[in-house]
C-alpha cells in the first residue's frame, strides 16, 4: 500500500481516499433520507387529530440542553481530529471519549423527552403528527446511538493500534458522520421545536 506522507494520514492511501469520497456520497443519501422525514413531518404537522400539538408538548429546557450538548460534542470531535493530525493519541482519545459522553447525555435527555411525551398522551400511535415527530426525532436519535457504538469501536482500535492511516481514516469518517448529525439537529431545532413553539 502506497502511503503519501504529504497529506494527513486519513488521506494517505488510495483506499483511504476512496472511503472518504464514498462516505460523502453516503451523506448525500442521508440528506435525502432526512429530507424525506422532514417533508413528512412538515406535511403532517397540523394533523393532530385528538392528540396534542407541538406547542402543547414541547419544552424549551430539555431542547436547549440537547442542543448545547450536541453542538459541544461536535466541537470536541473537531478537537479530536485536530489532535489526531498532530499525532497526539492521548488527546485524541480523550476528546473522542468526551464527545461520546456528551452524545450519551444527549440521548439521555431525549429519552426523558420521549417518555414525557408518552405520559402526556403524545405517543407514537396518537396521531399522524406525533408519529411523524417521534419518527423524525427517533431516526436522528437512532443515528446517534449507532454513532456511540461506532465511536466506541474506534476508541478501542486507536488505543490498541495507535494512529495509523487506517485508524485515522476511520476516525475522520466518523467525525464527518458526527458533524452531519449535528447539522441535522440544527434543522430539527429550527423546523420542529422553534417553529412549533412560535
Amino acid at each position, binding site marked *: 500500500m502506497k502511503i503519501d506522507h504529504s497529506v494527513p494520514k486519513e488521506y494517505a492511501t488510495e483506499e483511504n481516499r476512496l472511503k472518504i469520497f464514498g462516505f460523502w456520497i453516503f451523506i448525500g443519501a442521508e440528506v435525502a433520507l432526512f429530507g424525506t422525514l422532514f417533508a413528512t413531518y412538515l406535511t403532517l404537522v397540523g394533523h393532530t387529530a385528538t392528540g396534542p400539538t407541538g406547542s402543547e408538548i414541547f419544552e424549551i429546557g430539555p431542547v436547549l440542553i440537547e442542543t448545547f450538548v450536541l453542538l459541544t460534542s461536535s466541537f470536541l470531535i473537531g478537537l479530536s481530529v485536530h489532535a489526531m493530525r498532530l499525532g497526539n493519541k492521548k488527546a485524541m482519545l480523550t476528546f473522542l471519549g468526551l464527545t461520546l459522553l456528551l452524545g450519551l447525555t444527549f440521548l439521555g435527555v431525549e429519552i426523558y423527552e420521549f417518555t414525557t411525551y408518552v405520559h402526556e398522551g403524545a405517543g407514537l*400511535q396518537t396521531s399522524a403528527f406525533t408519529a411523524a415527530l417521534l419518527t423524525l426525532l427517533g431516526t436522528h436519535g437512532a443515528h446517534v446511538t449507532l454513532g456511540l457504538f461506532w465511536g466506541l469501536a474506534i476508541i478501542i482500535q486507536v488505543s490498541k493500534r495507535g494512529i495509523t492511516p487506517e485508524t485515522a481514516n476511520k476516525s475522520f469518517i466518523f467525525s464527518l458522520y458526527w458533524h452531519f448529525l449535528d447539522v441535522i439537529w440544527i434543522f430539527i431545532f429550527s423546523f420542529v421545536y422553534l417553529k412549533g413553539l412560535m
Partner: protein
Amino acid sequence: MKEYFSRFAIENADDPMIIGAQISIALVTIGIIVGLTYFKKWGYLWRTWLTTVDHKKIGIMYILAALLMLFRGGVDALLMRAQTAIPDNGLLDAQHYNEIFTTHGVIMILFMAMPFIIGLMNVVIPLQIGARDVAFPRLNAVSFWLFFIGAMLFNISFVIGGSPDAGWTAYFPLASNDYSHTVGMNYYAIAIQIAGIGTLMTGINFITTIMKMRAPGMTLMKMPMFTWSILITNLIIVFAFPVLTIALALMTMDRLFGTHFFSIDSGGMDMLWANLFWIWGHPEVYIVILPAFGIFSEIITTFAQRNLYGYKSMVFSMVAISALSFVVWTHHFYTMGHGVVVNGFFSITTMAIAVPTGVKIFNWLLTLWKGKIHFTVPMLYAMGFIPIFVIGGVTGVMLAMASADYQYHNTMFLVAHFHYVLIPGTVFGVLAGFTFWWPKIFGFSLSERIGKWAFWFIAISFNVTFFPLFISGLSGQARRMYTYSENAGFTIYNMISFVGALGLAFGFLLIVYNIYWSTRYAKRHLTEDPWNGRSLEWATHSPVPEYNFAIIPQVDSTEAFWDQKEHGKALFKGNIEPIHMPNNSGQPFIMSAIFFVFGFAMVFSMWIVAIISAIGIFACMWYRSFENDHGHYIPVEEIEATERKSGVIANED
C-alpha cells in the same frame, strides 16, 4: 397455538397452483442440497461464489437471479393474460389475480430489471474504465446478498403467509392492515426495504468507482457512454432510494406498530404515501432505462462501426433526463384533484423530458449514418428498440397531458405505454447487453441463429401483446381488473394480447434454450474480441482473469481499444508488478442470512426473533470494524503465467 401458526398458512391453501408451488420449491431445494452433496461441491460453492468479492462473479450471480425472476414474473404475466383472454374467465379468482399482478410488478421492476442492470454494471464497468475491481468490493458483495435475500423473502410469500395483493404501487388505505390483513403487504414492505439497502450501497460504490478509479488519461468526457449512463443512474439511486426507504419504513410502522402516517383516521394522509412512493418511483423508472440507453450506445457504435454521434449531447441529455426525473412525479396521479396549476406544471415538466430523449434517438440514428451496419443479435435488439420504444415515448407525451390523462389514467392505455418503454427499452437493452458481453465473461458466444429466432419472436409478439391494449384502455378497460363482462367489448383486444403473450413466452424460452445449447456446443476461446469492439473491456482476455488487466491501460481517446487496433496507439505500457487484490469473505453472506431471519421475523411480528437477529446484524458490523484484512498480492510470476496461458503477453505494443 393453532392460531399462532395459522398466520403462516395461505388463505386458500387447497389451490392446486399453490400446492404445486410448495411442492416444487421443496423438491428443488432438496434437489440442490442433494446435488451439491453428491458432487461434493459445497466447498466450491462457498469458496468461489458465496464468499466472492470479485465484481465479475457478483455480476454473474445478479444476472442469474434476474433470469430466474424473469421466469417467475413471466409466468405471472402469462397467467394474467390467460385469465383476461376471455370474459368472465374462471382460471383465477380475484384474490389470486390481485396477488399475481402485484408480484408481477414488484418482481419485474425490483427483482428482474434492477439486478439485471446492476449485474451488467458489475461485470462491465471496472473493465470499461480500466480498473481492477470496484471501489468497495466487500460492500459490493453485501449489496448482492441483500438483494438476493430480499428477493427470496419476497418470493416465499407465495407459500408462507400469502403474497402481497395491493398492487406494486401499494396505495393506502388499501395497503393498510384494515384492507390487506394478510402478511402479504408486510413482505412487500420488508423484502423491498432489505433489497433497497443493497441498491443504495451499489449507488455509493459505483459513483466512487467511476469518479476515482478510471484508467490514467480517461477524463470524464472520454468515458464510454455505458459508463456515463451508469454514473448518472447511480447518482439517481443515491438520491431516490432513501425516499423509498422512508416510505417503506413508515408503511411498516403503520402496519406493524399501529401508527397513523397513511391511515384515514387520526390525522393520517393516504395521499402522502402516493407522493412519497412516486417521488422515488419516477426516478426509479429512469434508473432502469438509462443503463439500457448506455448499452444501446455501445452496441450501435460497435455494429455500425462508427463513433457515437454527438457524444457531448448524449452526456448532457442524460444529465437533463435525470434532473427532470425528480420533478415529474405528480403525473402518476393527476386525478388526485390538484387543480390546474399543479397539473399544468407537472404536465410541462413531464413533456420536457421528451426533448433530451428525442436528442438521443436522433443521435443514435445519425450514428448509423455512413456506417457499416451488421445485424448481429445485439444489433437486432438495438434496431428493434428504436421504432418500438418511440411508440412508448410518444404515448408517454400523450399521457403527460393532464386533461387527456383524466381519461387514460389507470386504464390499459397506461399499461400499454409503460410496457412499450420498459420492454423495448430495458428488457431489450439487458438482453442485448447480455448477448454482447457474454463471450467476454464465458469465453464462447451464444448462438446467433437461435438468438435471431428469439429476437423476432419477442419483437413481433411484443407488439401483438401490447398494442391492442391501447385500444381496450380507450374502450374503458381499467387496469388490474381480474375479469370483465362479455358486453364490455374488450374481448377481442385481450384475446389478441393473449396470443401475443404466448409468442413472447416462446421467445424467452428460446433464449433459455440458447444458453443451454451454446454452453453445450459452442466453440470455446475463439477470440477475445468477437464483435470488433471499441472500448477497453474488449482489451482483456476471455474469460477475464481475476485481476482484469495485467497492466493498467493508458487512455487518450473515447474509444481507446479501437484506436489501438486502427491506429496502433499502445494501451499497455511498462512492466507487470504485483497486483493487490481483496480477499474473499463469508461475512456478506452470513450477515445477509441474518437479515433474512430478521425480515421474516418482522413480517410475522415475531419480535424476540427480530430483536435477536437485529443484534446479530450489528454484531457483524462490529466484527467487521475490528477486522484486519488487507487482501493479498498476486505475484508477478503468477500474472505472467496467466497472461501466457491466455495467449497474449500484456506488454506487447
